């Protein structure tokens, strides 16, 4: 192997190394964020369900199926209970976690083709080595 092809090989290797590191870091970061947002949704979702059952707000489907006026009253009651029981920061964190998870999933779906091509290229290259 002459010097020039060694240099070319070194360049290609460094590109693959850079891309592998980047994808690994991004995957770990995205996975952590997704995990955190799922945990937020589970924990605060549990808090909300607790409040709902403690205050005997009834079953959600039943409330929807009631007649118009009754249903409106029930929804108003539920809103008052939630606004007095749940602190604002819990709601904010819940919404934040939900949005974060949504954005992440959308970005993964959007870049899925590129990501899968990259993964295939990387696997092919590193298996060849």
């Amino acid at each position: 192997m002459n010097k020039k092809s060694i240099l070319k090989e070194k360049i290609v290797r460094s590109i693959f190394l850079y891309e592998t590191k980047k994808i690994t870091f991004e995957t770990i970061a995205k996975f952590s964020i997704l995990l955190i947002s799922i945990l937020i949704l589970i924990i605060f979702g549990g808090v909300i369900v607790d409040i709902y059952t403690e205050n005997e707000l009834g079953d959600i489907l039943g409330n929807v199926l009631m007649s118009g006026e009754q249903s409106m009253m029930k929804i108003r009651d539920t809103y008052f209970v939630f606004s007095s029981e749940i602190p604002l920061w819990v709601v904010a964190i819940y919404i934040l976690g939900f949005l974060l998870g949504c954005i992440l999933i959308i970005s993964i779906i959007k870049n899925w083709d590129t990501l899968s091509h990259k993964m295939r290229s990387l696997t092919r290259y590193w298996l060849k080595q």
Partner: protein
Amino acid sequence: MDMSDGAVIVRVKRGDIDKFEVLVDRYTTKIRAFVVQRLFDKEEADDIVQNSFIQFYKALAQFNISKPVYPYLLQITRNELNMYFRQHHKTVPLNEDIIQAIEKPLAEDTSEILRGLKEDNRKALSWFAEGYSYKEISMRLNKPINTVRTLIRRARLYVQKNYIHE
């Protein structure tokens, strides 16, 4: 069939990283020649070529495929070279005569340098150094212009011989 640079970049942007090898094959020799011309150290040159390609790969997302690749890559290489020179405080080597002249301790006063000259030569050279023209000096010394030229030339040779090439 050979793919155009634009087509290769589109494929790389889509995630086919192995296609970048085509660009590496196409431009490594040219880029390396460009760096070696300016750096001489071939090991360092290889590192700079490698860094230039990595920088180019990182910048691919912003690269406009309608533009040619080579000038863009060359500019990245130039930036890498400048960065290398800045980091290593590299300078252009000086001519040997200039180095000797700098290393030789300077006389405290120019009058000391001019002391060895004849009066006419000294006057002519110092006026010339002050910015007078040959004509003005010839009028001051009351001598023909060609004589003034000779006086100044001899004075210069004396200074060069005793204070630069000694």
